[in-house]
């Protein structure tokens, strides 16, 4: 029997990070479940791939670029927060928020044109998946925006730690889109 006293915690890992990672793991499983269902359906039944030609690939590509850029700005925001540079932090958080809003705006345009063209969530299995997957993703974008808005209006410069965690989440939302884009628009 040993009676040594070793340090228990793992150095360099904060509670916040561990928590967010576990949270993201469960989020990944939500989108993973959806994406896996989509793929199985897609492989299992031919014919409805044609529906995806009604989507606007250009707008979606622009959206992809916007989201990727916003991932960049959120990294910059973290860097600024670590430097203690409040102005730069606000600037980059603001840009990230704008990116998110831009994404949602374009998504809204897409939705309206599609619905105008008669493609609603009830128009068949492809459209069910399309609206559910992008809709759930858009809700996550909205959540990410809300988090960044809180940081933006935070009275004092928040601990960089929190900005980092917010950024982690934002990257996750970004990565999900990287999967959705080819699956829905390009396949």
């Amino acid at each position, binding site marked *: 029997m040993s009676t040594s006293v070793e340090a228990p915690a793992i150095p360099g890992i904060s*509670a916040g990070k561990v928590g967010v990672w576990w949270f993201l793991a469960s989020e990944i499983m939500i989108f993973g*479940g959806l994406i896996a269902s989509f793929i199985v359906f897609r492989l299992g039944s031919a014919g409805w791939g044609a529906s995806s030609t009604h989507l606007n690939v250009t707008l979606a590509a622009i959206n992809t670029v916007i989201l990727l850029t916003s991932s960049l700005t959120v990294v910059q925001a973290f860097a600024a927060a670590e430097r203690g540079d409040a102005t730069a932090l606000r600037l980059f958080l603001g840009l990230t928020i704008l990116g998110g809003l831009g994404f949602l705006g374009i998504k809204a345009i897409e939705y309206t044109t599609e619905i105008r063209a008669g493609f609603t969530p009830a128009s068949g299995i492809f459209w069910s998946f399309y609206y559910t997957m992008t809709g759930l993703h858009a809700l996550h974008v909205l959540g990410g925006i809300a988090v960044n808005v809180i940081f933006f209006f935070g009275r004092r410069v928040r601990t960089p730690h929190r900005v980092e965690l917010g950024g982690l989440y934002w990257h996750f939302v970004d990565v999900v889109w990287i999967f959705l884009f080819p699956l829905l628009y390009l396949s």
Partner: protein
Amino acid sequence: MNQARAGTITAEAVAHHAAGGFWRTYVFSTDHKMIAKQYLTLGLAWTLVGGLLAAVMRWQLAWPDTAVPGWGEIGPEVYNMLVTMHGTIMVFFVAMPILLGAFGNFLIPLMIGTRDMAFPRLNMLSVWTFALASLVLFVSFFVPGGAASAGWTGYPPLSARPEYTGVNWGLNLWILAQALEFAAFLMGGVNYLTTAIILRAPGMTFLRVPMVVWQQITAAALFLLSVGPLIAGAVMLLLDRTIGTAFYDPQVGGDPLLWQHLFWFFGHPEVYVVLLPALGAVLEVLPVFSRKPLFGYRWIVGATIVAGGLSFIVWAHHMFISGMDPRLAMPFSITTILISVPFAYIVFAMIATLWRGSIRFATPMLFALGFVAMFTMGGLTGIFNGSAPADIYVSRTYFVVAHFHYTLFSAVFFGGFAGFYFWFPKMFGRMLSEPLGKLHFWLTLVFFNVTFFPLHHIGLAGMVRRVANPLQYEALVPYQWINVVSTVGTFCMVATQLVFALNVVWSLVAGRRAPTNPWEANTLEWAAPSPPPHGNWGPALPTVYCGPYEYSLPEAREDYLPQNLGPARAR
């Protein structure tokens, strides 16, 4: 160190909190122990509902042609609602809040030697989300059309269109309640895992963490990693019901089996989410009352993780005859039957722990032993289900009902009560009455078997699940006496619970005050006062010097060595 961050409470904060007043102390508390009690209260309240539904159901099954006293005639619509809500309530609103919510919250910070959860406010949000879920589920009984009645598994298309069951809002609220419940336990799970990873006391290495904490965090991880697909599936179901998407509707390219895959991908890990915390409690109780180290601590941790991993690749054993490609059945059958291997290890290790021990038959120990026996029974009948050809026959019969009551009920009841009688002194500062506890155990053990053992037989005789009137089947008429026996057993078992209620009430009012360490146990919670104050420890956190099960060390005088008293007591 990291302890300074993330919600660790200092001694001053404790003093401050003590002046919090009624609302801060009992209602909007962030104290893990109060949150545990809130979960316990909600869980026990739901037990009354779930038990009532079961009793009504059993009456109907035994005497289908007579009105249920105090309830009235039961039509098949009502019966389906009873089954559905009984299953839902027992699994999600009794088992989870008691075994994870109450035990997890109470034990994890105390046993790893910290002052609270890593995110105390998230923890409060978790219990309040659960309360909201409870409210929604409760309200669903009273909306027009009544509560959900598509089975606790909610298979579409039955659940996807109101006209198939006649239930509209009841089912929407059922989905909403589940979603909220999942959210609550997601928050809880993140908290448990983070706390156990980050906030362990000095010296509390991973391999000194008590077994119940291991089981709790494995359960939390299983839950976090398995619930996602079902959340996605529930979103799809809700959209199918409300805005007309076609995920489960074959006419427009959907597939009803998609739901079954998503549900059981979660559902099988979920039964272990319920099992593991109970198993953990039993694994704590056994060494204490046999005064011996747990047999093969590391191996058990390994077996638990293996079982958890395997539970992700067995889900289709609920679907052998569902119409999925029959070539998939055997691979799933093999993984399913192999899952008996880690559990065999754990069962054998529990028994080996008793070998050459000095066994005391206190109430917690009786319940723990009851768990070992009853769980073995339930696990073994799982093998019949797990063999694809045998399952062709037993699937969807009462044999399965018997199987899962032997597993689930033994987890919630025998495992749960092993823990409850064991930690009650720590939780409430009073000792429970031993004679009443023993009476509670023996009567329940007997009546539990009277209730559920014969259900194996009627299942083998061909009685299918979820029927309101067994007498409609000619083959079953000669076996109706079994239903009567089972029902009588149920009523006796329910009546037995009065002994428990009496015990708790009497002990809380007039029970003997609990000493700090009434069972002479090693783990850290027994180093804190009974009940522990807010913040758990005095100004300094405990320091851990040894593993949790150092009982009957040959060189020591006493037969136990608390984890925080290493060198001071080793010689």
